[in-house]
């Protein structure tokens, strides 16, 4: 007893003698760019106690003499640093020098890797860089940030989508990459739902190392991590806000009223028709574009709270975003609320809970866009000689072209609203079985409810317009005969629909790290994943909405007699995926890294004969610069990488392998037509995923401490594309209503080179500069299509016109095919003496090139058509620059795409449709021009699809330019503000292009075979903004 007491007293005394307290110290180790470093060693100087930082860069050491201890932080490639604790419980350490940024931790799927060790080709963007752009959509913000990822805007309308293509187009089907947010599958179309402010980092796995996601990895994988808190940090509150005004960047050069009248007169005269305008002195007339494009507001407010206690970290965010459209203002508005909770807590020493919840609420109003009949299509083709409203105030009818309607009337009568409620998250429990072995179980969910309401009032756009819902200007409804002699009115209607989608995903995996004989390091991840997706939809249309008014636009208000006319529809689907995966990363010493991934996937989408697939990947890297013989002083870091692997694309229709009973099996018994059953589309039990084999060789270099260079060359071959080609008659698909099965056939190859070069000035006291440029060169080619078919037709040119794009062997996906022109026939003599007969040609017509050399232009077949363009850029470039001087910061972000073409398809080829003013330079007689053909109402072939309608789509765009000022903390701290920054910014300030249309940054809303076809694309706006961000 005495002994024990004595010990106690001595202990107390000793602690008093040392005059210090003992306790735990923790903190975060990061590099000079703020990137957290995983695997850094923190040792208390002169003792054996210490810790290694985890994937969040965190360390924690207990029983440290807080008063006197000195921490030694070290990590390979960085300068070792010593820091005195000086009584603090939280010591954050910044390591610098040597190989900058190489300790940066990346998520690589079910685990992490440091940039230094990673064996694959990936591209990293930190959240701050995206947020700074003030672009509401992550996908648009990513454009130009990294190489190998080509992002095009499908629509510039608020809430519109983008097409994301990692390393080129590999199928005419679904090219969307797999997108995971904190490990949870997030649909690519729904990226709009993410708040850029919630994002901590984005990592794009471009090469075969994406294969950890197996059958879903062929189009690349984008891993998005949301913000997390840090331990032992008091709550930090960040408030930010910006507001801005959006404008159209460009108006098309359309004819004004006088020019229009003159040209139309000439056109009709040339066609031997009477002149439509007796007086051409009509002045400017109506500028429909001025009437349609309006300045529109955008605003965004964010709040983030992050922090942590000893065992728990948290990050909570909320935001509101609202954007009106430059076309239609609130008729194309997008509003979004986001809420996010990201919570990590240690339930016990070995048990950790991670909980992520992302909530989104969206509302979007949409106008018809990007097609014939869209608002902008109508705007371009509306006649400048007609006013917007007639004498009595009613909208004008633009009667002379039946399918062009008054765009202002169209906007006013469009009511199309959709709402999305989306909940995405996970609950994850990680258990450290031993120090090296962690067992993680997580449950991921993704639920979205999408509501849609479309109100179609009774409208009269003018005689003969297809969009009319009324039968006359008095808005009398159509009468519908429901039985002989019995009719009812069909009044205004409303469509309401609701679809819900839910993903449930359970994943269980172990991570094991071990080091033996001091030289072998082995990191292994193995696990299983069970995924199920369900969708249900119900919709209905109801007629005779009272008062023709939006106020009553609800199915419940319908007055359809007896419910006649009203109709409903529904759908439901389910799909399932079961997977097992193993990844082993082996490191020998510090120089050699190797990785092997094997994933086995089973999917309900595939036929029973091919339900399971195995996807292996091998990769390795060699840190040349760590070799003894390495002596290139200027290149501080030199890594070579190699990877090869197989992955799949499972984005095919559910149950496509099954034969559906929707064929026509009808026969006559007892003289009565009797309906039977027959297989429609034939079954294909062999149906499977599209397979991509990708090889990548790359190098990462650090030159003179300030330059980062990454090079990648890849060959990506995709085979087994899905087709529905003609099949052998023996399969029995030639009966009525029967179709061939969907089969795997066809190959596509993408080869490319990616270069990223970054420069970061050595951290200075006042002036800092960092800049990077990236370039991607991709060569896309269709290598194989099924035997028996020559090509797959794509999008059409004009109204019901020729097929303009194809999927054909030896050409890029969706290349443009049509006639090549060679100037204009100037004289009849020239036509007569031409070695090539061009049927129907008269002077002033386009001269086509005889591709097959048979002395004649064949308009009935394809023999004289040739490749006249491609929608795929030869090279895309991104350039980012950040400069700061004292409190000022300036950043710019450029994107360029070069070598692609766009089809000018927004011109309605009708006598009265308005035209672009290049037509002023039309052919009017010998040698007047060799570019633009004559204008005439005569039958002619100048409007068939030729290179005359194909324009160079290359462009360079200043996507974002921003100037900010951060106040000296000394000034703001009295107000408890740690940091205050104000800025002005502009998006899409400048676009350099020769393209005549609104916006050369055109995606492919209609699929890969409709890329680069411009129907009067809803352009991205130029946005001028002011903003503020405060940190408390």
């Amino acid at each position, binding site marked *: 007893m005495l002994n024990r007491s004595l010990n106690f007293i001595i202990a107390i005394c000793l602690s008093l003698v040392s005059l210090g307290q003992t306790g735990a110290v923790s903190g975060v180790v990061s590099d000079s760019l703020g990137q957290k470093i995983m695997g850094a060693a923190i040792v208390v100087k002169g003792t054996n106690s210490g810790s290694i930082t985890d994937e969040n860069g965190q360390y924690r050491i207990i029983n440290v003499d807080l008063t006197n201890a000195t921490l030694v932080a070290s990590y390979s490639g960085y300068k070792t640093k010593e820091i005195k604790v000086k009584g603090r419980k939280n010591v954050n350490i910044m390591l610098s020098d040597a190989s900058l940024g190489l300790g940066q931790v990346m998520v690589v799927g079910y685990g992490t890797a440091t940039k230094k060790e990673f064996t694959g080709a990936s591209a990293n963007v930190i959240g701050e860089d995206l947020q700074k752009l003030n672009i509401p959509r992550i996908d648009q913000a990513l454009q130009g940030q990294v190489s190998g990822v080509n992002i095009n805007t499908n629509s510039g309308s608020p809430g519109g989508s983008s097409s994301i293509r990692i390393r080129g187009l590999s199928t005419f089907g679904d090219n969307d990459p797999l997108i995971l947010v904190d490990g949870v599958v997030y649909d690519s179309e729904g990226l709009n739902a993410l708040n850029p402010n919630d994002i901590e980092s984005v990592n794009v796995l471009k090469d075969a190392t994406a294969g950890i996601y197996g059958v879903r990895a062929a189009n690349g994988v984008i891993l998005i991590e949301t913000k997390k808190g840090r331990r032992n940090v008091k709550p930090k509150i960040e408030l930010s806000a910006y507001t801005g005004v959006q404008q159209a960047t460009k108006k098309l050069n359309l004819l004004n009223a006088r020019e229009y009248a003159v040209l139309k007169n000439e056109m009709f005269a040339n066609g031997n028709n009477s002149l439509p305008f007796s007086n051409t002195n009509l002045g400017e007339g109506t500028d429909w574009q001025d009437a349609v494009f309006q300045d529109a507001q955008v605003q965004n407010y964010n709040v983030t709270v992050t922090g942590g206690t000893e065992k728990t970290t948290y990050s909570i965010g909320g935001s509101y975003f609202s954007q009106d459209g430059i076309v239609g203002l609130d008729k194309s508005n997008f509003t979004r609320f986001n809420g996010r909770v990201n919570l990590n807590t240690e339930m016990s020493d070995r048990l950790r809970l991670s909980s992520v919840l992302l909530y989104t609420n969206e509302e979007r109003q949409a106008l018809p866009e990007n097609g014939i009949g869209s608002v902008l299509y109508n705007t371009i083709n509306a006649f400048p000689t007609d006013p917007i409203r007639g004498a009595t105030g009613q909208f004008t009818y633009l009667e002379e072209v039946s399918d062009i309607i008054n765009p202002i009337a169209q906007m006013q009568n469009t009511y199309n609203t959709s709402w999305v409620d989306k909940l995405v998250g996970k609950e994850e429990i990680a258990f450290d079985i031993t120090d090296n072995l962690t067992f993680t179980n997580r449950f991921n969910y993704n639920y979205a409810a999408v509501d849609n309401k479309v109100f179609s009032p009774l409208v009269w756009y003018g005689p003969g317009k297809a969009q009319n819902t009324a039968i006359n200007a008095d808005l009398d409804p159509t009468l519908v005969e429901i039985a002989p002699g019995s009719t009812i009115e069909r009044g205004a209607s409303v469509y309401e629909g609701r679809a819900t989608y839910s993903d449930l995903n359970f994943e269980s995996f172990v991570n094991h790290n071990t080091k033996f004989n001091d030289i072998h390091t082995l990191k292994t991840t193995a696990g*299983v994943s069970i995924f199920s997706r369900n969708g249900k939809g119900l919709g209905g249309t109801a007629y005779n909405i009272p008062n023709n008014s939006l106020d009553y636009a609800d199915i419940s208000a319908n007055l359809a007699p007896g419910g006649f006319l009203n109709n409903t529809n529904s759908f439901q689907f389910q799909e399932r995926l079961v997977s097992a995966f193993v990844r082993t990363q082996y490191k020998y010493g510090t120089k050699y890294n190797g990785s092997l991934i094997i994933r086995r996937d089973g999917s309900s989408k595939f036929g029973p004969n091919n339900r399971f697939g195995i996807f292996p990947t091998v990769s390795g890297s060699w840190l040349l610069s760590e070799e003894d013989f390495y002596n290139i002083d200027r290149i501080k870091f030199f890594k070579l990488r190699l990877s090869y692997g197989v992955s799949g694309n499972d984005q095919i229709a559910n149950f496509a392998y099954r034969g*559906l009973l929707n064929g026509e099996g009808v026969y*006559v018994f007892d003289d009565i037509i009797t309906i*039977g059953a027959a*297989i429609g589309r034939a079954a294909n039990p062999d149906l499977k995923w599209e397979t991509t084999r990708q090889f990548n060789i790359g190098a990462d270099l650090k030159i003179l401490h300030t330059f980062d260079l990454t090079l990648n060359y890849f060959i990506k071959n995709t085979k087994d594309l899905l087709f529905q080609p003609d099949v052998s008659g023996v399969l029995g698909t030639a009966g009525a209503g029967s179709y061939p099965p969907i089969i795997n056939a066809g190959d596509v190859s993408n080869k490319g080179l990616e270069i990223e070069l970054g420069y970061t000035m050595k951290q200075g006291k006042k002036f800092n500069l960092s800049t990077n440029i990236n370039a991607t060169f991709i060569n896309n080619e269709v290598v194989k299509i099924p035997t028996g078919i020559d090509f797959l037709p794509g999008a059409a040119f004009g109204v019901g016109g020729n097929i303009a794009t194809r999927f054909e062997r030896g050409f890029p996906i969706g290349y443009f095919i049509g006639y090549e022109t060679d100037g204009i026939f100037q004289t009849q003599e020239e036509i007569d003496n031409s070695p090539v007969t061009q049927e129907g040609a008269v002077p002033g017509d386009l001269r086509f090139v005889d591709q097959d050399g048979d002395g004649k232009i064949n308009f009935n077949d394809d023999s004289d058509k040739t490749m006249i363009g491609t929608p795929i850029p030869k090279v895309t470039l991104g350039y980012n620059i950040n400069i700061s001087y004292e409190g000022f910061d300036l950043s710019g972000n450029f994107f360029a795409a070069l070598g692609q073409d766009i089809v000018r398809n927004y011109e309605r080829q009708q006598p009265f449709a308005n035209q672009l003013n290049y037509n002023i330079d039309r052919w009017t007689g010998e040698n007047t021009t060799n570019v633009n053909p004559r204008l005439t109402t005569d039958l002619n072939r100048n409007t068939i699809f030729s290179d005359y309608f194909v324009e160079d789509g290359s462009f360079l765009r200043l996507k974002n330019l921003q100037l900010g000022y951060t106040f000296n903390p000394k000034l703001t701290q009295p107000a408890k503000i740690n940091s205050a920054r104000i800025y002005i910014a502009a998006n899409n300030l400048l676009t350099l292009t020769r393209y005549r249309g609104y916006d050369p940054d055109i995606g492919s809303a209609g699929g890969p075979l409709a890329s680069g076809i411009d129907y009067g694309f809803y352009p991205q706006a130029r946005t001028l903004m002011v903003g503020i961000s405060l940190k408390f």
Partner: protein
Amino acid sequence: MTKKITTIILTLIILPSMFSCKKFLDIDPLYTQDAENFFETPNDYQRALTGAYDLLQSSFMTVWIGEIASDNSIAGGESVNDTEGLHEIEAMSHDAVNNELRSIFRWNYAGITRANYLLENKNKIDFEGKGKIIAEATFLRAYYYFELVKYFGDVPLVIDKRLGADEVTKVDRTPRSEVFAQIEQDLSFAASVLDWNDPTKGRITKGACLSLLGKAYLYQDKFDQAASTFDVVINQNRYALIGDYSDLFKVNNEGHSEAVFDVQYSGAEGGGYGCLICLEGNAAPGFQGIRQYNGPVYGDGNSYNLPTQDLHDAFDATDIRRDATVLDIDAFISKQPNSSEITYAIGGGGHTGYYNNKYIKRQGEIGLPDNDLTSPVNYLVIRYADVLLMAAEAHNRATSPDDLKAQGYLNQVRLRVGMPPINASGNALTEAIWTERRLELSGEGHRFFDLVRTAKAADEINGFITGKHELFPIPQVEIDLAGGDWSQNNNY
């Protein structure tokens, strides 16, 4: 605590491993009938059977090719490019690229596939009346295979299953004899199940099964089996020749005592030229109608499949079958009152002055929705006169010939049309029966196959090359789509 956690972990590891991946992935589409979740009720079987019957309605193509390939008729039509394949067949210049031959190949396989789909699932459930459905499906498969063998000789034999897209490259052409063996087996089975009588008009009967079986024997020169099989049909005394030959092909008389196996059509549904296989009406009468005809009795049509002078002249002037088979359009018009007001046009695809008077668009037989393609006239695949003539031939050519019986059958046919009886025997009787076949059955799609079967084709058809034209070429595109390994028929 650690123990608890270990238990939890063990549970988490064990649970997923107990879970069956295969079962989890094996899900059915919701609320949708598809090929894999069908055949749950008797009605499902009945509906699938109707689907298999559907392809019988492609018969118009056989009427065309069986006649046009022979000395009986020319292709006709608007121009020589109008259904070009038929013009090539007329000229015996056809090769492996021929849309019409491809249609024959594909449509019959479509019928086979639909029958096989039902037969593949024949054991899924049991119910009363299933046997009859199975038997009808089996007959249909045999009929479609018989058509294919007639045209192409060796064809891939697929039985009781559907092929996957990959499997088709692994099947080869099955020797003709093996296909015939299957046909015989299927027809014998169907005949053993089905009754002579079916209350539903249009369903296959035992008589149809046995008659087609006898025909299949005849096409293999198995005369003894053919003779005994036809005798069963004849001795049943169910069928009889109808009195007026010219009434055979009129819609009002359908289901007459001479109809052994006919394809049913309806005039109640319109159709389009874009999908002839989708029609519920008979396409042949419309196509074979008089071009731009404006007059009584007939409707206007597309002047296809025009009988030759040779056929017209083959008839005895007193044989009523001549005018019932061949319409001499100018002679017909001249006999009408106001004949000068009756007009018609000559098609660029050829003109003989004659039209097929058996399957021709007649006023009063025009389908309501559109009168181009919706003829309700049934196609008589096998009628009793044919059975009698086939029986006569079989007895005459049997190992121990019974010419007396053969004469009896032959003269039944002649007697009906007022032709004097024939007393010949041996080879002379054989020739007489063959001649009678042409006179009795012309315009019905049998002539070419009879000429080939009896080795007379080279004598009668201009351009016919022995050793080549007995069979039509397998469509090249079908060879390619099947992987390119099939051999082509000789000399194509």
